[in-house]
């Protein structure tokens, strides 16, 4: 069994997140291109990328501003897209909640979907990881993703309209989320949760302000948890 020193954990996180660079590059470039297309200048595009670092919310904000939606509706909608990260924040507490305040603030700022998924998967698979190594691992993950996110938003904003719309880079976004889901489907309750989520978002698409995502996610989490409890009870009954 490998010993997890902080330094090793940092580089392990860095390497484990490396495949996501292939997603982050087209995704962040796409944001840069779309932002320039919507009329933002280079400085505005980069300000949004650095201040928000949340692709889905940035795309939502742009789309609504372009649509001439009132600012507060655009804000609420984009924040609703980000509400899922309150759940990430809670999920990370048992693993990195022990760190000091300033570190936790920095970790919160850097919290992104892909790296979160990798972190939680690793923490669950390696319960022997010491707390300090978990923090180092987290930074390893984020330190790989974030520079690419900034850098390629800039490249996208800089090259602007050079990327033809016929390439349909927009499809990289759902594909990215599908690829993230695949490895998480480890047990029957996980499948149930994913299915409930996917079906209910279509049923609740009429819910305004993107809050349908929160409705679907809540139903899915309850379904997953209840399925797990049901299977556990059944296994206990069979054992008895």
């Amino acid at each position, binding site marked *: 069994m490998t010993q997890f020193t902080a330094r090793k954990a940092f580089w392990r996180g860095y390497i484990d997140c490396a495949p996501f660079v292939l997603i982050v590059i087209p995704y962040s470039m796409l944001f840069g291109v779309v932002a320039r297309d919507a009329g933002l200048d280079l400085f505005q595009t980069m300000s949004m990328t650095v201040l928000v670092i949340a692709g889905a919310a940035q795309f939502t904000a742009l789309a609504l501003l372009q649509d001439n939606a009132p600012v507060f509706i655009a804000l609420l909608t984009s924040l609703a897209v980000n509400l899922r*990260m309150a759940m990430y924040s809670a999920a990370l507490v048992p693993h990195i909640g022990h760190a000091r305040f300033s570190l936790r603030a920095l970790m919160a*700022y850097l919290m992104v979907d892909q790296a979160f998924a990798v972190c939680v998967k690793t923490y669950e698979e390696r319960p022997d990881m010491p707390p300090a190594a978990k923090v180092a691992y987290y930074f390893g993950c984020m330190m790989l993703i974030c520079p690419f996110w900034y850098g390629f938003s800039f490249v996208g904003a800089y090259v602007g309209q050079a990327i033809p719309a016929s390439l349909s880079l927009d*499809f990289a976004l759902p594909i990215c*989320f599908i690829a993230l889901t695949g490895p998480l489907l480890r047990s029957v309750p996980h499948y149930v949760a994913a299915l409930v989520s996917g079906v209910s978002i279509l049923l609740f698409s009429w819910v305004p302000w993107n809050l349908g995502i929160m409705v679907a996610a809540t139903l899915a989490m309850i379904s997953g948890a209840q399925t797990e409890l049901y299977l556990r009870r059944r296994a206990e009954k069979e054992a008895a």
Partner: protein
Amino acid sequence: MISDFDFWVLTLLLGLGTFLIRFSFLGIFGGKEMPEWALLHLRYVGVAVFPAIFMPLVVWPPATDGIVDPIRITAALAALVVGLRVNVIFSIIAGMATFYALRFIF
């Protein structure tokens, strides 16, 4: 055209709000144990959120003005199957390759 004022109000508030969401539990409850029922539900955060993000984009893609596109659905299924069997990176390659190949053919 997006007005400068609207842009900056939105960006600054979105940046602040997003940070507060990310910091919520980590900031307030740092180091404290979470109850068992919370942990039970949190195990399913990923599989509960991601399908809710990708399903509408696959079924009603904004790029086609929300019209169902069999090519995108097929490509999404390819990505899912490969993601289940192999890994993340091949899942993306399979999805995008299927998408471009089908678009080239049809």
